[in-house]
């Protein structure tokens, strides 16, 4: 089999497959970052864009992929898999997708490596770009943020599809035949996303600042940890630099020939590629609202806009802290604390003092076993911190990893069991009320028409009593502090929370709380004819009004 393939072809093919695998991982992870991707076309080949596609290389991702591959290539029985999963702020996780790059034995001897295989791999990458936007996990990843994050894990070996639940579906991205086998790329994705809604939330609310071990017992104790699909520039201060391009210093300047296939000229020049140290020092934006970073890469012009700070809306920021390094001694622990350059967190409303702590995003700075030595307060950090609208979070605060246990809106929790102290739930004011008052709400259960002589009387009375009792029920819920959603406090002196509290228990309407002895039914009935006469006089007005409604 291999005798048919010249050694140059074989080398080229191996290189293609290797870089194809790396690019595949990049495409998949970048598609789950939660942001739109944009790279520029370039009419002159730069030599570092494999497969003629401008796909940025996130160094940590490349590093992880290489680590998983450990110098091997996908082969029969050894597939490269990228697992995408979702992790809620409560710590529940769920596998969403498994992308598999496999090789099978079916060889295509006639195909030209340097030309056809290369172009078909390029086409397959384009297909992958299209398909990654089409699976259900894409929309989930675009909305990741406070309630959940998307994580990825790369492993090499047997494909494990058990975590996807029942009835998962597969989509084939494509195949490319090569002289040594057929490369095939596919995705298996979960369709049963229902587990989260039926979960019983019985835990007590977390204490802020606790470090949570994110990795529950994995069924497959593989050595590769999960990484969040969000990105932050690598630890430049300590000099942990991942090579920004492949460290083999190979550049793919490919030239193709239009002459007959026998004269295919393919040159790959091993240029001495100057790997620029990730020039991030001057462009580093420590993510504040979790959205800001820019990564200098020689051939990429990808940039992410810093989030508008201070908006505090729950649907704003996607956490862009990327955990790259993994602590060698605790492969399952996500973060290695104790590194400077941490991410200052963004309080939702700066003026709300204590609640600001609640909005900490999962932050981490990679150190990869390197002890933090550099000063925590690097100049960039203070600079960016002072640029932020609140300008108060210091990097020190984020030396340890914290997790925002924020309960999302509409989470189906039995509210009685949860004190609302450290949770800011939008519409929390109304949630307990609804649960409690449904039985007594006169709108839901209209009062029975009593068989008494004064039915009007009776219903008024029950309204009044239910109204009164509803007032009492409010007191069952201890609301220490309340941070309403979408409220800004910088405009009015009275903020939304105060407003809610003040008007939470409005006084009963006077018409509903008629003193029983004051009026009797008989009097009501007597006054009816007069009222009817008046109304009859105005019948034209009423008709005109009804006309306008139609």
């Amino acid at each position: 089999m291999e005798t048919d393939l010249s050694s140059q072809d074989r080398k080229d093919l191996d290189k293609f497959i290797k870089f194809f695998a790396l690019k595949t991982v990049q495409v998949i992870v970048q598609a789950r970052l939660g942001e739109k991707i944009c790279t520029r076309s370039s009419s002159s080949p730069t030599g570092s864009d494999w497969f003629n596609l401008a796909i940025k290389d996130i160094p940590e991702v490349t590093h992880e992929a290489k680590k998983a591959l450990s110098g091997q290539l996908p082969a029969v029985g050894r597939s490269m898999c990228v697992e995408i999963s979702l992790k809620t702020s409560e710590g529940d996780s769920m596998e969403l997708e498994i992308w598999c790059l496999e090789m099978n034995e079916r060889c295509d001897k006639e195909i030209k490596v340097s030309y056809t295989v290369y172009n078909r791999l390029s086409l397959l990458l384009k297909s992958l770009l299209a398909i990654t936007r089409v699976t259900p996990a894409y929309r989930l990843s675009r909305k990741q943020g406070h309630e959940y994050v998307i994580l990825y894990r790369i492993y090499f070996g047997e494909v494990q599809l058990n975590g996807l639940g029942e009835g998962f579906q597969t989509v084939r991205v494509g195949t490319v035949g090569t002289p040594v086998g057929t490369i095939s790329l596919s995705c298996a994705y979960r369709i049963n996303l229902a587990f989260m809604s039926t979960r019983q939330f019985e835990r007590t609310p977390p204490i802020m600042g606790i470090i949570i071990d994110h990795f529950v017992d994995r069924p497959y104790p593989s050595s590769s940890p999960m990484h969040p699909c969000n990105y932050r520039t690598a630890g430049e201060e300590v000099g942990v630099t991942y090579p920004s391009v492949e460290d083999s210093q190979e550049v793919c300047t490919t030239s193709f020939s239009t002459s007959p296939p026998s004269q295919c000229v393919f040159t790959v020049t091993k240029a001495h590629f100057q790997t620029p140290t990730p020039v991030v020092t001057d462009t580093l934006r420590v993510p504040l609202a979790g959205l800001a970073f820019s990564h200098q890469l020689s051939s990429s012009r990808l940039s992410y806009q810093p989030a508008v700070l201070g908006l505090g809306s729950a649907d704003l920021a996607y956490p862009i802290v990327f955990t790259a390094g993994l602590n060698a001694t605790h492969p399952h622990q996500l973060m290695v604390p104790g590194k400077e350059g941490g991410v200052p967190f963004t309080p939702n409303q700066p003026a709300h003092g204590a609640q600001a702590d609640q909005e900490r995003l999962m932050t981490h700075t990679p150190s990869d076993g390197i002890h933090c030595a550099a000063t925590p307060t690097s100049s960039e950090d203070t600079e960016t911190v002072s640029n932020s609208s609140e300008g108060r979070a210091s990097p020190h605060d984020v030396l340890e990893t914290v997790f925002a246990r924020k309960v999302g809106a509409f989470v189906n929790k039995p509210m009685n069991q949860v004190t609302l102290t450290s949770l800011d739930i939008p519409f929390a004011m109304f949630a307990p009320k609804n649960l409690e008052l449904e039985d007594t709400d006169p709108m839901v259960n209209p009062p029975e028409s009593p068989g008494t002589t004064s039915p009007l009387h009776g219903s008024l009375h029950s309204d009044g009593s239910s109204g009164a009792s509803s007032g009492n029920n409010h007191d069952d819920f201890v609301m220490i502090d309340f941070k309403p959603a979408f409220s800004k406090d910088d405009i009015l002196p009275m903020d939304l929370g105060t407003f809610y509290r003040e008007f939470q228990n409005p006084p009963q309407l006077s018409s509903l709380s008629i003193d029983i002895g004051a009026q009797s039914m008989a009097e009501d009935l007597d006054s009816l004819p007069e009222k009817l006469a008046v109304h009859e006089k105005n019948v034209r007005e009423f008709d005109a009004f009804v006309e306008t409604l139609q």
Partner: protein
Amino acid sequence: MNCRSEVLEVSVEGRQVEEALLAVLHTVLLHRSTGKFHYKKEGTYSIGTVGIQDVDCDFIDFTYVRVSSEELDRALRKAVGEFKDALRNSGGDGLGQMSLEFYQKKKSRWPFSDECIPWEVWTVKVHVVALATEQERQICREKVGEKLCEKIINIVEVMNRHEYLPKMPTQSEVDNVFDTGLPDVQPYLYKISFQITDALGASVTTTVRRLIKDTLAL
């Protein structure tokens, strides 16, 4: 050789027509575009880099990927805009179809003009529905998003068959195979045309041929 023909059908609301068509056309062109060729000596050439970008749809819960080429995007938007206007003005039931045809030019001797030989045609049949309530529209957003996901998967499936593609041309022939007029990417030569069908299903009214970057009458 035979021309490959693929047909896709979509049922959308009026304001979703443009985005649905753009999603399909851009996805096809993503697969049928390469970087700019730079010919060197001895018949070798190198290929430029194609950038890509995500586009979120405003009226559909959907995101698609297109090549980063503003000119190409403009050309497609123009064609789709014309189709949408024609569809709206036709009265009818809102049935129409748009075709994206990839072709090769074959030089003929004078006085005959060049032949255009299609090798792949993608046809998108559009059916416009009118919805009454906001809730229906919301459902339609999601449904059309899901349908478009299926269409993308179909397109990728066809692309993956690796069927006939024109041979890579020499420098003198490149304009017969590729559209070299764009500054940043190089799609295969293509034409977009559309037809509005009336209720009877026959192609009546106008058959408008939109020729883009194609020298026809020389």
